[in-house]
């Protein structure tokens, strides 16, 4: 199979979750199972980045989807607190949050169970989340 890929850049805004879903559903080389897992994982990370990452710059979040033998998704963005995301990934457990009146701490757990591998990489300026389905 030849390598196929799609890419999108989106401003960190919750309203763009809908555009992001459309982007994933529009990747023509993903089968239904891959699309469903990809949309759950990518929107979860996009949401987390908007909610928890901090940057002095207002830069877009870049998402690319590649398919060769496996599907690989790369999320690239600028942040000054990437280490906090890594810590949260390790320690956050599901809990009831009275402020939002719902359970929280489910998202990264979902992502871990839906992907076969998730890697995090901090570059000099950009941070990367690399997901293999």
């Amino acid at each position, binding site marked *: 199979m030849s390598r196929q890929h799609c890419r999108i850049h989106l401003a960190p805004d919750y*309203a763009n*979750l809908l555009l992001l*879903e459309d982007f994933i559903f529009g990747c023509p080389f993903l089968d239904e199972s891959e699309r469903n897992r990809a*949309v759950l994982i990518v929107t*979860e990370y996009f*949401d987390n980045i908007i909610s928890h990452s901090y940057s002095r710059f207002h830069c877009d979040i870049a998402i690319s989807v590649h398919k060769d033998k496996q599907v690989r998704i790369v999320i690239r963005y600028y942040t000054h607190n990437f280490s906090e995301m890594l810590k949260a990934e390790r320690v956050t457990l599901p809990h009831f949050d009275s402020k939002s009146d*719902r*359970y929280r701490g489910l*998202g990264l757990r*979902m992502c871990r169970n839906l992907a076969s591998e998730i890697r995090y990489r901090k570059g000099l300026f950009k941070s990367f989340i690399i997901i293999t389905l």
Partner: protein
Amino acid sequence: MENITIIEKSGSNYALLEVSGTINSYTYTEFQDKVYALIKNTNLVLDLSRVTNLSSSGLGVLMAALDDGAESGHSLYIMKPSEVVRLAVESTGFSEMFTVIYSITEVI
């Protein structure tokens, strides 16, 4: 682009919400308000067959609704979950908490 549409119906011992579209951080509050209001008063059936994405915020609402239902003596049913809903629920590891049905007659 698909947002969220919620149609409310009722039966003798239940309320039914037919949900279409996506339940994410941008759209979940309307869903949350309706679910919490209804589960306090009656059994609640959520038809999620036309849901295209279910984020952790939506799942967090479903889990809190289970608690509210237990407190008020009502049950929460997920009816005909779409594949993405089924995947989302299973990926939390809490799927056994939810009652999944495939017909409204299972509530009556």
